[in-house]
């Protein structure tokens, strides 16, 4: 495949893989509760994930070092072990929520019992990861996720006040009527930032670069895919905030089920909109479930120094293969208990914020180190943005748990 086609597919895949169940819940909820006031957090988070995925991808291309190897080298074994436990717990919980989301969507389509569909979803994901090569996993689920563009089209039919929407990108103090609302707004801000900058995305992106055999020649591809693909992906997030504001807010509905989110495109385009939205959500949730399970296995293998990679035959990377199978099975068992997948998302998102500084600090340290990266080390812009985001996510990490407790898990 020529470079241009590869770049184009990479951009579309990054865009289609941007939204998962956590982001869906929090973007719609943020719009429903606070209108466009938190839109600037979406932009802030998008630039943040661009900055750190670009760095992680560049390190992977130049040094062929994945994120968790860097974490272990730079943070020491004890801190790396703590990060590993927390990061894999986040991956496990996120994977559980995504599997629950897939089963809920299948239940809407088939009417079959939820628990049986959970088993079906597990079998489907195991077979997909076992059979499909890495680049096909990325493409099938990333490109399928592009069907979520129906949410952007639904916003267009609602004709929101574009001035109000644009004003949302300007950071400002929220207009709220009580201290309770202010805390809730802060919680949604932190959760929104976390749902966009989820750490597994960086682990998966860097490991994916190595799986795809990137070299120094791919640095420009990495940069373009990250910047353009994620910017277009953020368009989906903005559309979800807008739907929360324009469709769900006036009706007093806080979307807590995947089927609820699909009601907005259904209202705009009828059953065709409903079907496209449900298919888009299915690809997005399945893709995220696969990414989280593989990320967990990548992390474990990279930390322990085991052979890893989807490109390797399962027997050649047996412990890696067993790890992603075990993560899928454990995730399915979590939702099999009957716990609400959206509640699982809330825990995973908050835990994610706490893990973020431990994940991004070593990436920044290596990416800026001229002895390691040579001429490909961070420039002034990447360093400035890297430090800015490190401070921002550290503050968010400190605030996350108190806000979670004070707002009863973001419920009020």
């Amino acid at each position, binding site marked *: 495949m020529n470079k241009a086609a590869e770049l184009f597919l990479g951009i579309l895949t990054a865009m289609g893989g941007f939204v998962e169940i956590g982001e869906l819940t929090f973007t719609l909820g943020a719009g429903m509760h606070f209108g466009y006031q938190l839109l600037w957090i979406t932009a802030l988070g998008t630039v943040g994930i661009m900055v750190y995925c670009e760095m992680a991808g560049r390190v992977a291309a130049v040094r062929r070092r994945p994120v968790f190897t860097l974490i272990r080298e730079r943070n020491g074994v004890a801190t790396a072990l703590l990060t590993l436990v927390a990061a894999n717990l986040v991956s496990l919980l996120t994977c559980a929520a995504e599997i629950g989301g897939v089963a*809920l969507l299948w*239940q*809407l389509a088939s*009417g079959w019992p939820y628990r049986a569909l959970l088993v079906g979803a597990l079998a489907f994901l195991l077979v997909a990861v076992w059979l499909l090569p890495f680049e096909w996993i990325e493409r099938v689920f990333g490109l399928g996720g592009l069907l979520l563009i129906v949410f952007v089209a639904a916003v267009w039919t609602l004709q929101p006040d574009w001035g109000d929407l644009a004003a949302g990108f300007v950071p400002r103090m929220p207009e709220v009527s*009580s201290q*309770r609302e202010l805390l809730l707004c802060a919680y949604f801000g932190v959760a929104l930032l976390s749902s966009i900058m989820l750490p597994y995305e960086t682990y998966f992106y860097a490991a994916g670069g190595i799986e795809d055999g990137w070299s120094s020649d791919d640095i420009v591809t990495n940069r373009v895919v990250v910047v353009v693909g994620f910017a277009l992906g953020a368009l989906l997030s903005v559309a979800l905030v807008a739907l929360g504001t324009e469709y769900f807010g006036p*009706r*007093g*509905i*806080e979307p*807590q*089920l995947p*089927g*609820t989110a699909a*009601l907005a495109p*259904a*209202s705009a385009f*009828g*059953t065709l*909109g*409903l079907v496209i939205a449900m298919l888009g959500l299915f690809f997005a949730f399945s893709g995220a479930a696969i990414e989280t399970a593989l990320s967990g296995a990548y992390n474990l293998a990279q930390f322990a120094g085991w052979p890893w990679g989807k490109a390797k035959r399962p027997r050649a990377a047996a412990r890696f293969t067993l790890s992603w199978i075990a993560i899928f099975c454990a995730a399915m068992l979590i939702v099999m208990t009957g716990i*609400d997948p959206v509640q699982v998302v809330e825990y995973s998102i908050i835990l994610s914020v706490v893990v973020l500084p431990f994940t991004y600090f070593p990436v920044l340290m290596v990416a800026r180190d001229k002895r390691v990266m040579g001429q490909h080390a961070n420039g002034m812009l990447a360093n400035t943005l890297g430090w800015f985001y490190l401070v921002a996510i550290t503050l968010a990490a400190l605030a996350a748990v108190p806000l979670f407790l004070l707002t*009863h898990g973001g*419920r*009020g």
Partner: protein
Amino acid sequence: MRRRQAWRQALGLLLVSGALAGACIVAERRPAGPEEVRIHVAALRSQAAELDNLQTLERQHCVTPAFARRHARQLEQAVARERSGLAALHIEQPRLEALRVQAHRMAGELATALRAAQQRGAPSAPALARELQGLEEALPTS
């Protein structure tokens, strides 16, 4: 030296776990206030509004009747979770307890409306969302 360090770390972990468990027990036994009731009432109000919206979309043929039935079933399960959450609240203030009982009753009515929505041609229930909104506004601010 290493053994002593390991003991110290184990003791630290034990203390932190004990403190967390203690905090959880205290939080669990603490009587619920208006905020805890409001959380459930707000969720029920949103679910009632969603039922109303779903039935409107079904009448407009924007969603298939099968989708509407299955979505109503998922909503019913979500309502059941809120209802058991309300039932589990331990409230000491008599006025708040009366509002909790009222909310619990309305959750039952919503569950019935959702069960009816799973049968074809069930009547819509927009009044429930309004009643729950009224109940939410009647709750005292803490």
